């Protein structure tokens, strides 16, 4: 055997060893989400760059089918290694043993501690006993207003101190009627389903109490009567429009036909494209208490995953400042970590607004998970009845009776409290 042949064989052998070694080191984790990855703020790509030994296989699941798809995948044992679970699913998955507690992982983390999270996250841990998921970011429900319309009507801008009385006075002044037809509404109808629960919450109902029970009653009754009057008696709030899965196709606020609208904070990423009027945001007005609903998805580790350490490394990166910055900027959603929230990475504003981003930060201090912990089918069905009340098709008492009956039927007698 010539010297050249020996060297060649040795080189091939070493190359094979390196190749085998490298192949063995690269771990692939599966990860699914309802949001497409942003080109500019791709946190998955950033993670892969930082951890070249871990590859992330990303699956995009449409939002409307997200929950059912994850449930089906879990049922068939094909769930991704890292799940981003909705609030209504996390308890069910935890009870079924489909996700692992993260307490030990978090204890060993150098990136963050649990003290850094907004109060609602710590409360959820209390409710569930252990930490099963970390919020990838959060969103809440707030009030949007058209500054130009407020200026024209000489109505002072809303502040965090606004009460429902202030709101009522304002919408009466902001409504413009011409030839017997409303040209400009004081406030748009409630489109997104969660708003009903947030507004009812300000009227005193707990929505979901500390025992995890669905608690509704007097507050809902009082709110529905008042909202009915604003819509039908005073005609200062637009009549309900059809909403399917929480999507509303005709937005009066964007169309410049309504001075105020309630919506999720995520709409700042949509409204930032408004170019024809100045707009801003404020917390939902106070009633008997300040209340709003929090929304998020929780990073969790699938209990049957074979790459749990790599899955945790991905979650830890996403929860780090580097990961959170990208996630926050991608969807205008703030971080649930207070230290990062303060830095305001999520504040990607448009040319006409918003200005008072602190409305979201302040809302985060009092907002609760509320209705999002309940099955979406139940809460959405109830909203259909609430809409029927505002349209004068169903009495308030009948709607509330149906609400309680349906809730008891789905959740069980013991899981419902009539306030």
């Amino acid at each position, binding site marked *: 055997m010539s010297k050249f042949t020996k060297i060649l064989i040795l080189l091939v052998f070493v190359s094979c060893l390196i190749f085998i070694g490298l192949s063995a080191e690269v771990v692939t984790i599966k990860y699914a989400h309802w949001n497409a990855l942003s080109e500019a703020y791709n946190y998955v790509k950033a993670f892969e760059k930082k951890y070249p030994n871990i590859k992330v296989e990303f699956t995009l699941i449409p939002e409307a089918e997200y*929950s*059912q798809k994850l*449930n*089906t995948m*879990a*049922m068939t044992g094909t769930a991704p290694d890292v799940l981003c679970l909705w609030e209504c699913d996390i308890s*069910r*998955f935890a*009870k*079924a043993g*489909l996700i692992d507690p993260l307490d030990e992982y978090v204890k060993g983390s150098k990136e963050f501690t649990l003290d850094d999270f907004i109060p609602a996250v710590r409360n959820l841990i209390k409710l569930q006993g252990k930490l099963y998921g970390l919020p990838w970011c959060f969103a809440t429900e707030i009030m949007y207003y058209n500054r130009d319309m407020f200026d024209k009507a000489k109505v002072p801008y809303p502040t965090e101190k606004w009460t429902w009385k202030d709101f009522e006075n304002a919408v009466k002044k902001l409504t413009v009627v011409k*030839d*017997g*037809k409303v040209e400009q*509404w004081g406030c748009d109808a409630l489109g997104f389903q969660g708003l009903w629960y947030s507004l009812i919450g300000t009227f005193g109902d707990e929505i979901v109490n500390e025992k995890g029970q669905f608690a509704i009653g007097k507050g809902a009754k009082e709110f529905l009567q008042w909202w009915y009057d604003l819509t039908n008696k005073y005609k200062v709030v*637009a*009549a*309900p*429009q*059809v*909403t*399917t*899965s929480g999507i509303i*196709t*005709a937005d*009066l606020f964007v*169309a410049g*036909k309504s001075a105020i609208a309630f919506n999720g904070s995520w709409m700042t990423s949509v409204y930032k494209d408004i170019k024809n009027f100045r707009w801003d945001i404020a917390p939902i007005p106070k009633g008997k208490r300040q209340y709003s609903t929090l929304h998020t998805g929780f990073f969790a580790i699938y209990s049957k995953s074979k790459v749990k350490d790599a899955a945790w490394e991905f979650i830890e990166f996403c929860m780090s400042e580097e990961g959170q910055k990208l996630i926050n900027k991608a969807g205008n959603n703030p971080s649930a970590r207070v230290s990062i929230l303060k830095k305001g990475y999520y504040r990607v504003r448009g040319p006409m607004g918003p200005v008072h981003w602190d409305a979201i930060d302040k809302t985060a201090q009092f907002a609760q998970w509320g209705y999002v912990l309940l*099955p*979406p*089918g*139940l809460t*959405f*069905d109830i909203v*259909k*009845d609430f*809409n*029927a009340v505002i*349209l004068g*098709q*169903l009495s308030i008492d009948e709607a509330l009776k*149906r609400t309680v009956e*349906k809730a008891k*039927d*789905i959740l069980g007698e013991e899981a419902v409290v009539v306030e």
Partner: protein
Amino acid sequence: MKEKKSIVPYIYVLPWIIGFILFTGGPIIFTIILSFTKWDLITPPIWIGLSNFVRMFKIGSEFWEILKVTIIFTIFSVIISITWALFMALLLNQKVYGVTIFSFFYFASAVVPLIALTFVFQLILNKELGIINYILSLIGIKEGPNWLMDKNLVIWVVIILCIYTYFTGQMMLIFDSALKEVPKELYEAAEIDGANSIEKFFKITLPAISPILFFNLVTATINSLNTSFTLIYPLTAGGPGRVTQVISLDIYNNAFKTFRMGYACAEAVILFILAVIVSIVQFRLSKRWVYYEV
């Protein structure tokens, strides 16, 4: 050799049989079994006997309301869509210049994805921003109806929108080809006897295409019962209240929104039985009005 001959045909149909068992027969049997259980998808099913059916049919249950909406929707959507498809097919059989262009336009709406179509109609029918109410305002109606939220109007709006579905377009094509097969001599003979257009339609056209009409009637009914979900879910989601909540939509909500898979399967079993009963009745009645020979 003889034995080999008898096996070969079965081998040919084997792929279909396997497909049927795996994707149709199996799921049907599994659905029936699950209808006797309580199952939330992620924990093992619990056998609860007839509880799902008892809950469904108890007095005051919302299922009765949903059943009523389903029956009303099915009857009228079938009548409207078949009448529309037949009317369009008759127009396409007129000797007019550029009939193929008309044919394209009539069928175009049927090939637009239903989800896109429903969102467009949500906008068109919107109370504040919709074009229909805008047109009404031009003729003096200041306060146009809230088309998709008025409990007296919405079911009829949904029924009328069935004419834009793919299925109605498909029926139009089937009617179109059936009408072209009706012997021309019959019309010529009727004309000599002095029959007018209406008489020709009822005495010749309808009896001649009655087998096709019957086929469309049965398939439209089953389609309406089973797949009304695809139209109603994105359009109204069953609201306001339960005014447009049909069984197929309720099955989806129970299975995937409230994770009551057992109850949803029980509803699916009832829907299956309903479709079978309606089909049997239609077949029985067909003997009185369907002519298989011209």
